[in-house]
């Protein structure tokens, strides 16, 4: 975290990773705003974390298992599953093709 400067190219790259379309004007605005936020985060550099394990969750639990059975209470009919879809056809969700023809 030695440098907290975030360039417009960085913002563009991150936006692409996150599948967010940004106009050039927005990229400029976000780059400025993110810079001041990342500068604030830089204060974490003051803390010595040598040999400190990260904490990802605080439940104190691990390996929560359940019986392997079909829970019919959580099943949807095809009609229910498709009810909110913007586009469906023949019982399928319609999506953009991800492979070239």
């Amino acid at each position, binding site marked *: *975290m030695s440098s907290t400067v*975030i360039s417009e190219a*960085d*913002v563009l790259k*991150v*936006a692409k*990773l*996150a*599948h*967010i*379309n*940004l106009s050039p004007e*927005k990229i400029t605005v*976000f780059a400025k*705003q*993110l810079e*001041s*936020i*990342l500068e*604030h*985060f830089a*204060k*974490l*550099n003051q*803390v010595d*974390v040598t040999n*400190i*394990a*990260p*904490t*990802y*969750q*605080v*439940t*104190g*639990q691990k390996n*929560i298992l*359940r019986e392997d059975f079909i829970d019919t209470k*959580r099943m*949807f009919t095809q009609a*229910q*599953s498709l*009810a*909110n*879809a*913007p586009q469906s056809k023949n019982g399928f*969700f*319609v*999506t953009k093709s991800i492979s070239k023809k």
Partner: protein
Amino acid sequence: MLLDKSISELAAGLRQSEFTSVDLLNECYDNIAKYNGNINAFVTILPLEFTVKKAKSIKLTSPLSGIPFVLKDCYVTEGVKTTSASNVLNNFIPPYNATVYQKLLNAGAILIGKMNMDAWGHGGSSENTDFGPVKNPWDTSRVAGGSSGGPAAALSARMAVFAIGEDTGGSIRNPAAWCNITGLKVTYGRVSRYGSIAYASSFDSVGPMAKSVEDCAVILETIAGVDPYDATSSPTAVPLYSTLLDKKVTDITIGIPDEFYQEGLDLEIKSAVLKVATDLQKAGAQIKNLSMPLFDYGLAIYYLIGPSETSSNLARYDGIRFGHSREFFTDETIRRILIGTYALSAGYYEAYYKKAQQVRTLFIEEYKKALSQCDVLLQPITPTPPPKIGELMNDPLQNFLADIYTTSQNPVGVPSLALPCGFTKSGLPIGAQIVGPMFSEDLLLNIGHQYQQLTDSHLKSPLSKGDLEGLKPKQ
């Protein structure tokens, strides 16, 4: 007004046929008709014919039977539009119920509305919503707080008896403080998150908002407990909180962490919060001043991990199976997605995300140490009274800094009870929070209830101020 009564008084009145559930509904809908046009607390109001029909069929099986309530619009409700206050989901009709909602349905409580909030929980003012900001019923030129601003504003203007909010970094406590409402951020895992639209999955806490601690206790004992549908919900036994409120506070030591009362804290708020300690001291509690030197790092931990988790959660929204496309995210949500994606991306992961999780470990130790010197910690909730609408939206970093006292607990997981504790000279509500060890809700509610025996400020409503200019119905 019936809606000024506590849940236990209402439950008794319903059983003695002094009034009916329909009477309660009528009061709620009357206040909604009078005030909501201006306050904008609701995203969806369930039709009165529908809720009345339901009320007439309710059997009085629990203290919540026949009691009207509202949900923050982040809880999925079968057949009832659920938006998370985002246009991305403005047409989403969920096919299933969140566990917290199902439990309240089983208890016979009656849902009357889905409430406005910062979209996806992203904000502390309920201005980052696609459905117009929520206004503070105490002064409608000011924000209600957030992200559970709709629930808090609605309770304060007596449009429902209680609400379920959701707290990721203060989202129950901040609007509770600014609207004079009592609210509980539970221990992480105390209440199931199943069906709660996720913001930051390792911080999100589902909890009650109401007019008093006693009401929160009744609600919590109904909604808490392990849920097979949420692997992070805790198997820790659920006490009958409402039966544990009467113990005196004579054995209690209240810790005052110095770092929470320094520069940046409004002086009126500081003295009102510290007066909670002296009031409890008069009732027999001990006070201990202590230090939490790592306090200042809490905000950075929160705003690295929270956006990282939200960017991961929202990465899955594709608008193919439900909702609209990602083009509909607002700027605040995009900012958090960008921060999170950046902190998790190759080359920055170690420096930002992992580092924050390591400091989180130390932060948890800091809380353990502080709580080994006392039973509970007394802290402010907000650094300032509610700002004017628009003020916080102009500067994203300032917007984050407004959460400094309430983002401190979620990375740790500890519970925190938000208590109204007075008003500024200009008549704006002030809140204090008491924070305890993991699963100490019984203790927090006990102390909070004892405090509320010493004061009546939590029972004050903006409606009792009379013909408030700001509360006149919209013409």
